[in-house]
């Protein structure tokens, strides 16, 4: 009997979400098939890649990064270079320095940085906070106001601060809200329910389902993303049809394989190569599981993942 290929069709789709405005706007999501299953049907918009820069500059970065950003001394100057990185679809400003337990940069200062970065680029902008819930809520409100009309995505609203972030970012200033749940599928759905009950439109929400560097519990990330896509497409669950955006750089570059010095582990080879490999492996795995966008930082990772996306779309 000849083989008959049966495409897996769903009567549902992931929401398409546009970031930025005008000619350089970028749209993520829109798939009505499982991740990258272009042989089954419409994968919507091919996965997009964000390039992450930090308000702390290049502190502790490897040579490949310092060379790429050579001559850039401010976040705005870095952003201008980041958007020119081959493969970049959007720029992500991570406001690490705002952390009250770290540099504790003031909200006003962060707003100025965000405005300068937004002014220096034409690609869409994503703002990542410092992971302190109260500070992020304050930061996001002020930055959302300062960048009104630029259609910026904020990462992220969490269970603890979703009300203030949702109300400011999503309702008052009509920006895009990232809903962050750390590899907790029930919470992922719950946050979307809470944000929509607050009045944020489902199409203005993206999910950051959390991640882990490859080898550090990634199987939980994989099963979470699988279940989310199965519910979104197979069960037409509107509360899980938001596109998924995954910050990969911060995870991949903070594990032992990416951090330890070559002098301590000579058999592992150069540190920078290891970091890039971790970043590529994690990003590729996230895209295969269902991320509609990943956020990376190393030029080699961005180039590699961009080539992968181009080959698969």
């Amino acid at each position, binding site marked *: 009997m000849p083989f008959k290929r049966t495409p897996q069709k769903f009567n549902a789709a992931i929401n398409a979400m546009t970031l930025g405005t005008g000619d350089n706007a970028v749209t993520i999501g829109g798939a009505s098939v499982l991740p990258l299953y272009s042989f089954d049907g419409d994968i919507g918009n091919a996965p997009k890649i964000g390039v992450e820069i930090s308000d702390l500059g290049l502190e502790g970065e490897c040579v490949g990064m310092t060379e790429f950003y050579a001559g850039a001394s401010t976040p705005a100057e870095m952003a201008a270079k980041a958007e020119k990185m081959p493969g970049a679809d959007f720029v992500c400003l991570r406001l690490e320095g705002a952390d009250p337990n770290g540099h504790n940069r003031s909200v006003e200062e962060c707003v100025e940085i965000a405005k300068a970065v937004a002014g220096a680029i034409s690609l869409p902008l994503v703002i990542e906070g410092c992971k302190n819930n109260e500070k992020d809520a304050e930061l996001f409100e002020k930055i959302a106001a300062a960048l009104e009309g630029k259609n910026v995505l904020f990462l992220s609203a969490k269970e603890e601060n979703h009300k203030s972030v949702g109300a400011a970012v999503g309702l008052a200033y009509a920006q895009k809200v990232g809903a962050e749940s750390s590899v907790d599928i*029930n919470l992922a759905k719950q946050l979307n329910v809470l944000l929509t*009950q607050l009045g944020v439109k489902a199409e203005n929400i993206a999910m950051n389902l959390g991640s882990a560097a490859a080898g550090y519990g990634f199987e939980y990330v994989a099963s979470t993303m699988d279940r989310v896509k199965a519910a979104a497409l197979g*069960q037409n669950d509107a509360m*899980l049809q938001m596109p998924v955006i995954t910050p990969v750089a911060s995870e991949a570059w903070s594990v032992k394989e990416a951090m330890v010095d070559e002098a301590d582990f000579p058999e592992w080879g150069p540190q920078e190569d290891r970091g890039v490999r971790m970043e590529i492996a994690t990003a590729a795995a996230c895209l295969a599981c269902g991320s509609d966008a990943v956020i990376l930082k190393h030029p080699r990772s961005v180039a590699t993942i961009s080539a992968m996306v181009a080959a698969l779309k």
Partner: protein
Amino acid sequence: MSKFVVIGERIHCISPAIREAMAKRDPAPILKRAKQQLQAGATYLDVNIGPAESDGEELMKWAVTTIQQAFDNVPLCLDTVNRKAIEAGISVYNRSKGKPIVNSADAGERIENIDLAAANDAITIALCQKHGIPADNDERMAYCQEMLERGMMLGMEPTDLWFDPLFLVIKGMQDKQLDCLEAIKMFTDMGLNTTGGLSNVSNGMPKDIRPIMDSAMVAMAMANGLSSAIANPCDLRLMETIKSCDVIRNNVLYADSYLSI
């Protein structure tokens, strides 16, 4: 693993308000009940126009377009013994949100409603009865086979026949309840969809008892695989039970707010 389908039963010409609205072509009372049921969580709405011998075709067309236009093409279950009226309803039906359901075919006089569903790419409820109430599950399964074969011969997907085991009233037929549950299990094991008039079981019971009995029945039936019911979605206890059972069956992903969505 798909979500339980509640077919809201409250647009029924047995209700004086609805009967009058249908006679006068007054949309307001019908749309009001449609809205209540959809807000309460109904997926499909049953539209029962009675036998409507004189003006069934025109009435069904009016009801279908009136309800679908008001509620974003909500999928409907067309409920009448008047076959021409069902066909007329389907002729104006918008299927963007789901196929129409023919309510209903059986293995007896109404078996041709399967032909009607097949000819119109519709779903049909397939009542496992021929003459009166089936005596046992051998009889139910024989009717199931007969209807399934007829539908498949006409090119229907087996999943487009929703088998109704015939829920029976507890007051008077208490000893038949487990049969009905077993029939649901057998249909489910064959990969078939099931539905039925759930509130039959509590017929004749005091008003305050009925939601309790209906909820218990739906939970036991869902444990056996029941995939749909024609029921009153405005019964909060029943809907909470169905939503909880959907979670337990892994039909719907749990979230703390699952009862409010």
